[in-house]
Every structure is written in structure tokens, then in C-alpha cells.
């Protein structure tokens, strides 16, 4: 079922896809709630219950070719909307070279092999598809995020493909001897490893939530099973109300961590923006130490987004060069400028490049001009936070020494201005300082994985936590009318969290009940 809201042309290029994906998820959630209250009854199952799963089936890390596997009824939707097979599905089990596009923006993400395995002749016994794409992290992330935005699709649980294959009776004895160990590694070890890898803090945080949720559930269950003819203290439910509310807020806050942990895993989006001919493409080439973008003295050379993946100080970075911002009668260039602006809006960090030779020599005038320029480029409020931007004054090799010094001193610490770097892409002057600054900005954005507030590291965890928050809302919705349905909300929330921290059984809940209450009968 398509939600009209998700069909909005969110014309995102790579960097925007994550946002498109979350937006789609979010609207889908809302959509679901509408159904609940309108009583349509055609409930879309929550994330974890959605039917079609996808995952990167080849190993993590850089590799030549990556295989993304999709299984479930929406596999056909994915094929139709992402590889341009509107009318006909490809012949079964035959590799086809296709462009893989974002389902909403139609942006080409990669070109690769597409394979279609209709049920029941697939590994899982369900409709399945495979995308064999290039192995770079940017491409993989983009394809996975695009898949996540297809309605009915969700990231697979550890070992879930095998589990489905197992249910479909697809595994045969010769396969299984080896598979047993494989799945073992895929699930048990992976879960333990994932929990261990989650910095100790994160594991603690999730365990803490799980513990509190268990208590909430135990207390509601006690109230249901024992309150009327046995002695359950008044005010038990009121305490649960408070706890559930707190948990909702805390998990919600955690989800709004601005993707720091995921950034660490999948890359910080850094966008180079500025007026035409400021030297943006030169900066890109300088940073990636290869001529990734065409550089020329002609204004408007770059018309589309040029993207490259980098490692800066150990952090993965997805760097995009954009078209110079200017009014242009050229339709192609107009589109390029529109994309550039959109990129800037979606960027984690914007490098605003300015031709320093065009600045007034007087520093106050210069800073006023820069502030103005900054506002016009970073139109969205969010990005005007100076932490999200660096000012790069390029072409310093063309400035007299005195002017350079003047700017260097005069533009520091001006309120409203982000950190300023004077560099020359021609002579590499100032590049070292710039890199240090860039690195520290990125580092603060990813968070130090070794300390500080725990951050989300996996999209899968995010999905389960979102499910958890949504389920907790069910508690509030039914608290006063139907406690069984309210408790169901906490049960679902605990199931969602349990997929990260481990399962919770009825006995465990009963243990808490008997520890906390004197059940009198």
C-alpha cells in the first residue's frame, strides 16, 4: 500500500537519501496511526512485522562487488521502482545489467547486475532479488537507504534470510552441516558481538531501558492479573505512566542523536558550496588528491553534484562538490544550482568556499559581506549554526601578504561567522591547518566512540527503537479505556528492544511481579 506522502518527489541525490528514507519511515508511521484511529483495520504491520527484508549479504568493508539481497513479497516493488522494470520483471535467475535508481528521486545510485528469483525457487523460498553493485561504502549505503524507503521493506534481522529459508524447508542436509555453524556465527555471536561492540555505554543504556520496561510491564501485568481481589497498592499504574513517559522521551531523544553513530559507520556528508569559480572543485580535488572533478577557469564548470568517499582522520566522509550558486538562464545550470542548495540543506557539514581576492580589503566590510553570503547560501536555519559550516577563503596565493594577515586576524571570532581558513588550492598553503580544523569538526560530529554519550551505531537498532517508541504510544492511547491493549503496547515495545538486547519471557515478568508485590491469594 502506498502512502501518498511517501510519493512526494523528494529529489535527493545520494546524501539526501537517508533523509528521504527516514521521512518515508516517519510518514509511514503516521499513516499507520491514522489507520488505528480511523479503524480501517488494514493495519500495516510495524517495522519488525513488515514482510520484506533486505541486507548487504556480502561482507562489510571495502570490496569490489557487494551483494544486496531482498526477500519477501515487496521484492517485486523494489525491482519495479529501483531498476526501472515498470512493466516486465526480468527473466528469472538471469543476470541483467541495469541502472539502480532511487525510487523517489530517480537518481542513479549505481549500475550493476540485477537478479530475480521468483518464489519458490529462491534461497528463502520467497520472491527474492539480488543487486550486485559496486563495493564502495557510499554506493552500498545509498542502495540500502533507498531500499529502506520502499514501503513494506525493512532491514533484515541477523540470520533472518536463513530463518526464512529454514521455514520454507529450503535447506538440505548437505548444506546444513556447514550452515549450522554459519548461522551460529550470524546470530548468536553477532548479537553478542554487536552488544560488545556497542560501546559499553550503549549496551548499558539499552539494558537499562530494557530493565525499566520489564518493570513497567510487570507492574501493569500485576495490576491486570491481581489487583481486584488481591492486594496491589494504589498508584502502581501512575508510576508506570511516569516511567513510560520518561522512556518515550529518552528513547526519542536518543533517536534524535543526529545520526552520530551511524555517521561513524556510514560516513559524514560534507558538501562544498559557494559562488561560481570560487575553487570548489579544486578543493575537492585537493582533498581527494586526484582530479575527481573537472577544473577550469570558466564559471559554471560544475553543473551537477560530484561525489567521492574519503577517509579523514579515520572518519568516513562522503564529500560532494556542487554547482556554483548563481542566477543563470541556462536550464541545466538552474537544476544544478537547485541540487546544490538541496545538498547544502541536507549536509552534515558545509564547506563554504569564497574567492578571497573578491573580498573588500577592510576587515569589517569583509566580515559583513561574508555574513551576508553565508545567509544566502545556508538558507535553512538548521545549518546556520556555525558548527555545521566552515568558511574556506581560497586563492590566498593571489593576495598580498599584508592582506592575508589582516583577514586571518580580522575574521577570527566575529560573532555569527563560522571558523575561517585561508588556503590556496594552487600552492596548498594553509591546507594543513584546514585539514586539522575539518578533522576536529567531523570528529565532534561523529562523537568520540570511546567516550561521551552513547550513540546509535546501526540502522537496525534505530528501526527497533523507533518501533519501541511507537509501541509505547499505544500504552498512552489505551491506558484509560483498555488496559489489555495498553499492556500490549509495552509488550511490543519490549519485543522491539528485545531484538537488540535479547528476548524477555513471561517467567521473567512474573518473577518481577512476585518480587515487588505480595500477592495475597
Amino acid at each position, binding site marked *: 500500500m502506498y502512502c501518498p506522502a511517501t510519493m512526494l518527489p523528494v529529489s535527493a541525490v545520494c546524501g539526501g537519501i537517508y533523509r528521504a528514507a527516514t521521512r518515508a519511515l516517519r510518514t509511514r508511521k503516521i499513516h499507520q496511526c491514522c489507520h488505528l484511529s480511523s479503524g480501517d*483495520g488494514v493495519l500495516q*504491520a510495524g517495522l519488525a512485522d513488515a514482510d520484506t527484508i533486505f541486507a548487504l549479504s556480502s561482507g562489510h568493508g571495502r570490496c569490489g562487488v557487494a551483494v544486496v539481497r531482498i526477500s519477501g513479497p515487496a521484492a517485486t516493488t523494489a525491482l519495479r521502482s529501483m531498476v526501472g522494470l515498470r512493466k516486465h520483471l526480468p527473466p528469472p535467475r538471469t543476470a541483467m545489467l541495469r541502472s539502480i535508481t532511487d525510487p523517489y528521486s530517480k537518481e542513479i545510485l549505481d549500475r550493476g547486475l540485477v537478479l530475480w528469483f521468483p518464489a519458490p525457487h529462491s534461497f528463502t523460498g520467497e520472491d527474492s532479488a539480488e543487486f550486485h553493485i559496486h563495493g564502495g561504502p557510499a554506493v552500498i549505503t545509498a542502495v540500502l537507504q533507498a531500499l529502506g524507503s520502499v514501503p513494506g521493506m525493512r532491514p533484515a534481522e541477523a540470520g533472518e534470510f*536463513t530463518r526464512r529459508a529454514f521455514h520454507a524447508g529450503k535447506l538440505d542436509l548437505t548444506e546444513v552441516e556447514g550452515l549450522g555453524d554459519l548461522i551460529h556465527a550470524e546470530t548468536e555471536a553477532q548479537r553478542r558481538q554487536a552488544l560488545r561492540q556497542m560501546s559499553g555505554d550503549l549496551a548499558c543504556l539499552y539494558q537499562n531501558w530494557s530493565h525499566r520496561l520489564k518493570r513497567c510491564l510487570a507492574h501493569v*501485568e500485576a495490576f491486570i492479573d491481581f489487583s481486584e481481589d488481591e492486594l496491589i497498592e494504589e498508584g502502581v499504574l501512575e508510576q508506570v505512566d511516569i516511567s513510560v513517559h520518561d522512556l518515550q522521551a529518552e528513547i526519542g531523544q536518543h533517536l534524535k542523536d543526529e545520526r552520530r553513530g551511524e555517521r561513524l559507520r556510514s560516513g559524514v556528508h560534507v558538501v562544498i558550496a559557494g559562488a561560481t569559480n570560487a575553487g570548489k572543485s579544486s578543493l575537492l580535488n585537493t582533498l581527494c588528491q586526484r582530479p575527481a572533478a573537472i577544473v577550469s577557469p570558466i564559471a559554471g564548470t560544475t553543473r551537477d553534484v560530484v561525489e567521492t568517499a574519503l577517509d579523514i582522520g579515520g572518519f568516513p566522509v562522503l564529500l560532494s562538490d556542487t554547482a556554483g550558486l548563481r542566477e543563470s538562464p541556462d536550464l541545466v545550470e538552474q537544476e544544478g544550482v537547485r541540487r546544490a542548495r538541496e545538498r547544502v540543506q541536507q549536509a552534515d557539514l558545509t564547506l563554504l568556499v569564497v574567492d578571497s581576492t573578491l573580498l573588500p580589503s577592510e576587515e569589517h566590510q569583509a566580515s559583513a559581506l561574508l555574513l551576508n553570503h553565508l545567509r544566502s547560501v545556508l538558507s535553512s536555519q538548521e545549518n546556520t549554526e556555525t558548527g555545521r559550516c566552515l568558511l574556506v577563503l581560497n586563492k590566498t596565493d593571489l593576495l598580498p601578504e599584508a592582506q592575508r594577515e589582516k583577514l586571518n586576524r580580522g575574521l577570527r571570532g566575529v560573532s555569527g561567522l563560522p571558523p575561517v581558513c585561508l588556503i590556496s588550492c594552487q600552492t596548498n598553503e594553509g591546507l594543513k591547518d584546514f585539514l586539522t580544523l575539518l578533522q576536529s569538526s567531523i570528529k565532534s560530529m561523529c562523537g568520540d566512540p570511546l567516550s561521551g554519550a552513547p550513540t546509535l551505531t546501526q540502522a537496525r537498532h534505530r528501526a527497533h527503537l523507533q518501533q519501541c517508541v511507537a509501541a509505547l504510544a499505544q500504552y498512552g492511547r489505551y491506558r484509560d479505556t483498555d488496559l*489489555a*491493549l495498553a499492556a500490549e503496547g509495552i509488550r511490543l515495545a519490549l519485543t522491539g528492544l528485545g531484538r537488540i538486547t535479547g528476548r524477555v519471557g513471561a517467567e521473567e515478568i512474573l518473577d518481577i511481579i512476585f518480587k515487588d508485590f505480595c500477592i495475597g491469594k
Partner: protein
Amino acid sequence: MPHMLTRKLSPVQSIWFLVTKRASHVSRQLYDVIVVGGGHAGTEAAAAAARAGAETLLVTQKIQTIGALSCNPSLGGVGKGHLVKEIDALDGLCGRAGDWAGIHFSILNRRKGPAVWGPRAQLDRQRYREFIQAELLSTPRLTVLEGSVEELLVTDPNPEEPGVHSVTGIRLANSSHPISASSVILTTGTFLSGSLFMGQTTSPGGRIGDAPSSSGLSQTLRERLGLRVGRLRTGTPPRILKDSVDLSLAKLHPPDSNPTPFSFMNTHTRCKPEEQLPCYLTYTTPGVERVVRESLHLNCHIQQDTKGPRYCPSIESKVLRFPGRSHQVWLEPEGVNSDLLYPQGLSMTMPPDVQLRLIREIPAMHRAEIHTPGYGVQYDYVCPTQLSPALQVKNTQGLFLAGQINGTTGYEEAAAQGLWAGLNAARWALSLPLVGLSRTESYIGVLIDDLVSRGVKEPYRMFTSRAEFRTSLRPDNADLRLTMKGYELGCVSSVRHNEAVRVKRGLQDAISSLQALTMSTTRWRRMLPGISVSESKNSSLSGMDLLQYKDVSFEMLASVFPENLSEYMEFSERLKIEAVYKPHCDQSKREIERIQKEENMTLPQNIDYFTLPVSLSQEVREILDRFRPSTLGAATRLEGMTPAALVTLFNYVQFTGKEARTTNRKQTDHEEDLCTRNASLPQ
């Protein structure tokens, strides 16, 4: 609608008839099913076996105690009421007996949502016994015999199936002749090596006033069949003379003004609304705690290390575990003509003089007199992981166990197992495949699955929190979930089946009519002013959607569309519940299907997990050997199982032992069939 209440035999006649059947007058020496024990499990087992077509013999020590309520004079409650409804849906006795004997009806949790409503009743002990005894008497193919079972007769293990015995019958005390049967159901309650405790005295027995049962039975189970047994304890409070209690010092607790019957076959209870008796609520005082502490050295039951229930603790354990609190004491009537009160919450095992001192610390009972003192019981139970989901002992063909012998507590839990064991014992005797109930379709399924796949560490009581699919397993829809299935399996009469079919069709038609009434929100608001359907929605709603709203009732809709809906007025409450829960049930359907799939993959019971030539860790092998799960579903719920081990197991089953699988397959197909039928309830 049939009124079962009207066609009852007079109690005098029934008891006279039953008493005439003494051990010496046994008419035959060969039965399909023998049931040992006449408590809640035994009576349901005997009745179910006979309903399912088996020639059945019920052996009990004393015919007058058949259907006796040994402990509390009440039935149902939260979770337990669910069981009563399900037993009734399978045509068992206790729901109708409750409607006959109830003297105080109430639905607990009325404000917490229909999925957790707890139908409950205080019972008249006398009337309950009368009903059960009369019912058993009028059951065709059922013979009742007074006697004590001396020995359970089993064969030596079959050389082709090492370790597997078969039951052949029983031998009574004072009789050299065995009575043969294909199936035997043991429902010995607390009598298996039972001992009674009061103060410092201990005596053998399972219930005060009854002779202890023979040690022969216990010996056969342990030594001959090698079954693992454990020991549990329970207790009962003293009975108080009503006249000696100052009820003005307790809080009056009236029943529901309009009693709701347990049974789907009854429209009303025997007791008229105005004839119902109240209960009274009072509390313990610091004096009670003092008496408990002072008398601990005189109390050997409480000093023993045997596991008692955490949810039905004696006053001693309550005081010791939660000191400094006051605990509830319910004063419950024992019957219309009884001069006794049952002090719920005051189960105790101290010497009688201390018991008197203790109860007199409670203001309402400051001059109370004790009729019968409270006492404790310790008894053996057979670790239920040694049973199959049909409640058959895995290593003894034809031997079934039900009730407290499996480690449960409570009348309803016992009755539920009794019914299921009775049905399966009959099916075994009649060479029909044994059947299980899924935890996705019933509380009985949850109960049995918990018992046989996880075992017990303390007396097991049902709670709604044990059921994963609580929103689907409601008391209101037990008939839709189970009656058709029970009819297929042979334990439901055609009268009840027809009634369930009628109700199901009525509900389906009503839901179709409601769904057909689809119109815009604006129009609904015009027709039903005052409903809180939000204006902003311009979508159209069906009558079924509208019924989900808190302030919309079926009666309201029927008053606007009498021509479409008025004929369904008898279902108005059920329709409202269906409407509210439907979205949630739909949501859990997928998970239910997954579990059912796993439950339909049976694991052969004769696997030697230690030598199985597949890759399993020693730890997993030990777990599997200890619990011997019957299905893959049960295996997934074992603690310590790994997905890898499950895959290995699955494939082992898939590719070996084809013969065993063919028979299993038949059974599974049958069950699947029924599940599908079950799943197509009113949508």
C-alpha cells in the same frame, strides 16, 4: 437457546445411584479408559473420555467426595476464568457446574478491557458436588467405582522400542483381579505420597478426612517407569463459624447485580440476582504478624524447604516475606445453607490453638470460632516435561496424567488438563491420533505447553500474562476458538456445536452488515450526534470502524439502522469487543502463523540426542535430552537453544525417520486443517 440448567436430576437420586456401584459390583473387567481420582481433573477427564466415545471407568476413594471443592469455594477469576470458558467451550463440566452452584457472581477487571475480564463466582459446595455427581451419572459409557488403586499395571519395555512401556490397567486394593484398559489417567491430586501438616504433627494423606492413597502407585511411577518426581506444598485456611464473626467490622463486597453465567450454553444462572450472597473484606493486624513469629518453632510445614506457590502463600510466608504490612482477608460464604465462612488469604499450618489465637487478632474475628483448622499438604508431582502435549507420559503408552500431579495448582488448571487428557486417552484407546492445543489458540494450550516444554519449579497457576496472544484469546470468544475444533475431535456434543455454529454465523452476518454500512464521517455525525469521531477526517467509516470508538455502542447503531442490525441484538457486547480488538488481532496474526508453523514440526520422541550424528554442542544436547521437546516450536522456547541447533534439528527430522514422519504428518495436516478453520472466524 437450550437451557441446560432445567434438565437436572435430583441430587438424592444421583448419589444413591452412584453409591450402589461398589468395587465388588464391577460389571466388567475391561475398559477403554480408566480415570483414577474424582477431583476436578478426574471428573473432567472421565466425562471427556466418555463424550469422546470411550467406555470409561472412574475410580475414586469416596463417591461422596466426587466434585468436592477441597479448598476455596470459588471458581474462575482473571486467567482462571479464561480456562473455565475454554473448558466450557469444549463441553466440559465446570462452567455449567459453576452456573448451577454459584451464589455470588462477578466479572473481575471490568474496567480493564474485555481481553482480561475475569468471570468469577463464589460457589455453594453442596450444589457443586450435586451437579458434578449428577452429570457424571447421566453420562453414557461412564461407570463410577469406589475403591483404592493399589497398583498401576504396565508392560515391560518393548524390545523394539527400548524404554517404552505400555499401560495395561490397574489393580484395586483388596482385589486380586486386575481391571484392564488401553488408557489410564492418573489424577491423584495431592494424594501421591501426600502428607498433612498441622503444627508439629504430620500424618500421611492428601486431604483431611480422607484415607491416604496407596504407596504402590507412587512406587510404580518412580521405580518401574523411572519418572522423575518433585515435591510441592500447598495449604488451606481454617473454616470459621459464621455466627461467631462480627461482619459489621468487615467491608461488605456485593456481587454483580446481574450475574453473568460461565457457560456459553446458559443465558442465566441458577441463583437469582437477588438471592446472591455477599463477601466481606478485612485485613490482618500487627497482632497476626506477632502470633506467626511467636509460633514459628511450632510449625514444621513452614520450616520445610519444599516449594510452595508464591501467589497463594500461607499467612506465615506472607508475613515473613513482606513484614510490617497488612494483608487482605476475604470472608467468603461456603453455601446458601452453610454456617461456615472461608477466610481467603489465611492459609496456615500452625497448631489449632495458635490458629485460633491468630484469627482473633483480626477485629471482625475477635470472638471467632474455628470449625476445622487449616493445614498444609506436601505431595509428589511428576515433572511434567516427561509428558507429551497430549499429556501422555512419553515413555509409557496409554498413561496420561492431569492436575496437581503435573505440578499445577487450582481447580481450573486441573479441570483443563483433565479434559484434554480425557479426550486424548479416549483417542488413544480408539486408535485415533493424539492431539495438542496450540498456545496461539487457547489458554489450555498455553498451560499445557508451559508444563510439558518448560516444567515447573513451583505450583503452576494461570495468569493472563502467560499468554502471548492475550488480545486474541479472550473469554468472550472461547467458543469460536474451540467448540468447532472440539466437535471435530469428538469431545463436544452436537447440541453445543450447533449453538456455536449459530453464534458464529450470527456474528459473521452482523459484521458483514456493519461493514456494509459505510458512509462519510459527516453523515455518521449527523446520524449519531454526540459521538467523538474527529471532524478532520473526511474519509468514510464502516459501522465496524465506528464501533471501535469508546462512546459508540452496537445498540446505538442498531437504533439508527434497525432494519439492518436489530436482529443481532443478542450479540451486541460481543460485536463491540470484536470491533475494538480486530486491528490488534490482525496485527498479531503473522506471529501466530509463524509459531503454528513451528509447532506443526514434530520431533520424534525416541531421538538419542547424545549420539545424534549432527553438529550440536554438548550443552544443547543436554538441554534437548532433559526437556525432550515434542515440536520444533517447543524447542525454540527452551532456554539455551541456538538457532543453529534448531536448523540442525529441523533437518534431521526432515530427512530421517520418514516412517515416523508419515504418521506425524497425518496428525499435523489434521491440526492444520482445524487451525485454518479456526482462523476464519468473523473478520
